Each structure stands twice: as C-alpha cells, then as structure tokens.
C-alpha cells in the first residue's frame, strides 16, 4: 500500500515503461476481477437452475442493446458517477466514508424543500433550479463534512459515523415528508409538493438523458484535476499515504479531511438534487434507491480514480437498467442484482492482494521498489 502511494505521489520520477506496466496492472486486475465474479455468478445461476447465457445476453440487450436501453443506462449512471465520486474523494485522503446514500437523500430533500416557497411564488426556473442545486450540495456537504470533522477532531471512526448519519438523514426526510412538508394529495406515498413540469430540469439535447449525467462528467474531470494536478490534491494524497508524516510536514490534515468530506457530500447531494429535479419531481422514499451504496462499489472498481468512475458508473447503470428485463424474462427476484454486486465487491477486494504479485507487470530492474 505505501509503495503504491509513494508511486502515486511522485509520478514524475517513474520512467514511461514502468508507467505503462503500472497502468496495465491497474486495468488488468480489476478487469480480471470482473471476469472472475461473472464466472462465479454463472455458477451460482447454474446451481439455482437458470441459464447463465440467457442472463448475460439479456444483460447486454437490456443495458446496451438499443438506443433506448443505452439512454436508460446513462440515466441511471448519472447518480452513480456522483455517489462514486463521493466515496472516491475521501478515500484518496484515507477515509472510508460510506454515507453517500444519506447525503443523496438529504440533498434531494433539501432541494425539494427549498423549491416549495420558490415555486409557489412563481420564481422562474432559471433562478429556482440553481438554488435547489445549491441547497442540495450544501445539505450533503455539511452532512458529510460533519463526518470528517468528527473523524479528525473527535477520533470517531468515519465508516461507522457516516453510515449512522445515513440512517439519520433518511429519518429526517421521513419526518418532514410525513409531517410538516407533506403534500396532502400524496395519499399512498407521502411526498413533498411536486415542483411541477415547468421546473423540471430537461434532458441533454438530442437524448432522453438528464443533465445530471453531463454534470457528473464535468465534476469527475474537475475533481481529477483537483486531486492529481493541484497542491491541494497533492497534500490530500500525501495525507492519505501517511497522515502522521503529512502532519509532521505541517499540512493542515484536519482541514484537508473536512474539505474532502464536504466535496464528497456535495457530490452526493447534487445527485439527490438531480433525482428530484429530473426524475421524481418531489422528495419521497423513492430517493432511497441504493445509489449511495452502489457508488461505493463503483469507486472501488475505479480504484478511487475520478476519471475511471465515469465508465464504471455506466457499467453499473447498465446492470441496473437491465435488472428489470432480467427479472421479468427469467423469473428472478429483484435482489439478483444485489447478489451479483455483492459477489463482484468481494472478488474485487480479494483481487487487491494480487497487486505486485504478477512478474509480468513488474519492471525488469525493481531493485529500488520493495
């Protein structure tokens, strides 16, 4: 782990062939993990008496087979890019922050809540939507910022606190949605007042994919630049490599952690905003869709690289998009996707043990690297 981090911090020192080998290794091992878990899942399907070939071909047609399904996949990838970033950024500074789900829900709720007075006073969408997005990002950012603060200044484990805060965030939304902010017309599914069609954020021209997808790509690029091309990113990665050494160097470790967490929460909160402004039109229990948790897996498969988060999120968007078709056509329960994801997750983490183990990826003279 430390040898890898040192490499990541000092890229200039490596010769290009070492770099290519390193890149090949970071691509080959996750791809290998995907293949192995696909095989394992096929065995699982065979055991329960289903046809794996049918499963994978349905997965392909449901995810990428037609322009409709591709757009569906991209639509579902949008929140996953943002929640993937929400896990990846704190991970770079050494935090295992898994509260993206709560930040998404709270962000979506904050966006829907601030929209209620704005919509009723007919404030134009061009003003309302940015305010909603800001509210979502602020709510998510502060929520996860608290995780970073508790971690550094109170020594509270960030993994546990972030998951607890997720449950609390969902309870806060339920409290308001079923109480003070409930739309009386929402009988079966308590919701906030709908924002109405004029306030919906549209699609990217020429597609049915909402703007959240574009926002996710822009943020992924921006955060990649931030984390690998700026002093801030350098300091953050150094802290992630060795917090004690970073502190000894006089880096403001606490603030770096809090800021990384605020960025993460803002990403997840923005995902919540897009879910409200583009998909649901109001805040309700539908916001708790597991995007936050799938985002963790997305970030792991992308090896916490903000740019790699985008293609991996599209892959998982496709899996989610194909899930419905697979359920109907093969008579499998909706938890099938959960089993597949869980298996992939475990295999992926096991694959971490193979870094540096394959001679093929090691430079010929590796005397200076342990």
């Amino acid at each position, binding site marked *: *782990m430390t040898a890898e981090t040192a490499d990541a911090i000092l890229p200039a020192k490596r010769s290009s062939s070492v770099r290519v080998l390193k890149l090949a290794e970071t691509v080959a091992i996750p791809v290998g993990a995907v293949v192995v878990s696909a095989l394992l899942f096929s065995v699982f399907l065979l055991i329960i008496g289903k046809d794996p070939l049918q499963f994978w071909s349905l997965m392909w047609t449901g995810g990428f087979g037609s322009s409709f399904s591709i757009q569906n996949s991209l639509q579902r990838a949008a929140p996953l890019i943002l929640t993937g970033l929400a896990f990846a950024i704190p991970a770079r500074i050494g935090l*295992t922050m*898994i509260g993206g789900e709560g930040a998404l829900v709270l962000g979506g709720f904050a966006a829907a809540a601030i929209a209620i007075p704005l919509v009723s006073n007919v404030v134009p969408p061009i003003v309302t939507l940015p305010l909603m997005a800001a509210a979502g990002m602020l709510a998510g950012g502060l929520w996860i910022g608290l995780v970073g603060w*508790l971690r550094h200044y*109170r*020594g*509270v*484990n960030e*993994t*546990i*606190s972030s*998951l*607890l*805060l997720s*449950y*609390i965030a969902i*309870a*806060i939304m*339920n*409290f308001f949605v*079923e*109480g003070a902010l409930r739309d009386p017309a929402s009988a079966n599914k308590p919701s906030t007042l709908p924002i109405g069609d004029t306030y919906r954020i549209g699609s990217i021209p020429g597609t049915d994919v909402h703007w959240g997808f574009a926002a996710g790509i822009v943020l992924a690029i921006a955060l990649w630049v931030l984390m690998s091309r700026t002093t801030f990113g350098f300091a953050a990665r150094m802290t992630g490599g060795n917090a004690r050494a970073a502190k000894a160097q006089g880096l403001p470790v606490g603030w770096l952690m809090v800021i990384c967490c605020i960025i993460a929460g803002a990403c997840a909160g923005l995902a919540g905003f897009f879910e409200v402004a583009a998909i649901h039109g109001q805040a309700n229990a539908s916001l708790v869709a597991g995007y936050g*948790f799938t985002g*963790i*897996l997305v970030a*792991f498969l992308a090896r916490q690289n903000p740019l790699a988060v985008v293609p991996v999120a599209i892959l998982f968007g496709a899996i989610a998009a194909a899930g419905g078709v697979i359920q109907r056509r093969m008579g499998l*329960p*909706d*938890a*099938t996707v*959960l*089993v*597949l*994801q*869980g*298996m992939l*997750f*475990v295999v*992926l*983490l*096991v694959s*971490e*043990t193979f*870094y540096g183990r394959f001679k093929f990826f090691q430079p010929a003279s590796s005397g200076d690297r342990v």
Partner: protein
Amino acid sequence: MDQLVTVLIAMLGGAIRVSTPFMFVALGETLTEKSGRINLGLEGNLVLGAMVAYATSYLTGSPWLGVLAAGSSGLVLGALHGYICKLPKVNDIAIGIAFMSFGTGLAFFFGKPFIQPSAPQLDAIHLGDWTGNPALAQALQVNPLFFVGIIVAIAMWWALKNTKWGLIVRMAGDSAASAKAMGVSVDLVRFLATAAGGFMAGIGGAFLSLSYPGIWSQGLSSGQGLMAVALVIFARWDPIRAIFAALLFGAAGAIGPSLQSIGITQGYYFFNAAPYILTLVILVLSAGSKASAREAPGELSITK
C-alpha cells in the same frame, strides 16, 4: 401517571426484546475485535441469519433448528471474512462493507418466497404471570435466547480472563509480534474468532425473524448489525458491559413504539432515529475517552 407507567413497562419489555439481537452481534464482534480484527459486515450476517432461520423454521417446523441454521450461515460468512482478511493488502473494513452487501443480497434473493408464509416462532418464557398485571406479564415474556446471550457473555468474560485460549485471543489482539514469538498462529486465531463472531451474529438474526418482530421482510434490520459494532467500542471490549450497553440501546429503540402504545404518534420518525443518534453520541463520547484508548486491543485498525 398511569400513562407513564404504561410507557415505562412497555420500554422495559421493549428493551429486553430489542436488545437481544444487539447483544449477540456485539458479543460476536467483541470476540473478533479482541483477536485484533474488525468485522464491519455483521449486518450481512444478521440479515442472512434472519432469513435462514425463518426459512428453516418454516420448512422443518422447528424454530430451534432455524436458530442453528442461522448460526451456521453466519459462521460461513464469518469464516469467509476471516479467510480473506488474512490475504496481504486486503483492507478488513472494506471487506466488511462488501460482506454487508453480499449477505443482504443473498438474504433478499433466497428470502423472496418466505415473505408471505408464517413460520413457527420460538416460545417465550413467561416470567411475569404471577404479577397479575397483564401489561407487566406481557413485558416479561422473555425469549430464551436473551438468557443464552447473558450466559455466553459471562462465559466469554470468564474465559477471556482466565483460560489459555482467552489469553491467546487477547495476545493476538494486543500484539501480533509477541503472539508470534510464543509460537501462536495469529492468522488462525483471528480466523477462528471471526468465524465464531459470525456465528453469534447469525443467531442474533434468528431472534429477529423468530421472536421479535417475528417476521421475515426486507426491512427487518436497519443497521442493527452496524450499531452493535459501535456498541462494542462503547462497551470497551468487555462482554459484560456489552450486555448493559445492548439493554440501553434496546430501551432507546423501544421509545417510539412505547409512546405509540399510549397514542403518542407525533415525532415517531424522530424516535425511530433515536438509536442511531444515541450510537453517534456515544461514539463521540467514547472515542475521545482515555479509558477507551487504554482498553482497546492494540492491533485493531479501527482505533488507530
């Protein structure tokens, strides 16, 4: 006044019922963490255990067989966790998250057909019939697993302190180097402790589906497995303190339903969130405390 008594009695009964799964998960996690490893994935064991117990009880008609099956399913997940964690470069916290989602996914997948039918439940022991107070009698219908948990806690406390095995587990947790110097295989000790911890968490799941709330559904556990992990830190890795901590958590979880029993439904969602808020507050208080730092197993990554 009467209403206050009603609420307090309901909270007593609730604390006993709600605390049992916490107790089992926390005891399992205490053992695992004493050996120097953390298993954050016990939520997965809990949910899978609940499903397996319910399905076994429904198919065989024997709830106790269900308890055993639930423990076994937890044992398998725990053993997998323990095996994977000993591979180099593998992060035990991340593996815990993965097993949380894998266990839950398996439970939802295989549990689908068992959501509707009702399975035979574990019989409670009626401890309060002599009081002549129906509310109190109902609160004191205690499931035998509650007592099993207490016995296990006392046994674990005694064994960790007084036996050779207890010493080996504590040594693996406090200093891997000195355990190795004594010729103890740290990996093996941690593997066994993680598997045993998984077994306990599986039994905690059996309580959820076979006693209280006594159904199998996908929303059965919402983070109880995770809260129990936090509870271990609060109880400072002591099995006896873990019992009291579990009762406290149980009481917090029982506030909402107890108030509902006298017709107060306002703030129901707030009281639902009470156990999570309590856990967080407790974590903040205990993470900073010197006593906690002193008693934490030295090899534990979560307290470093």
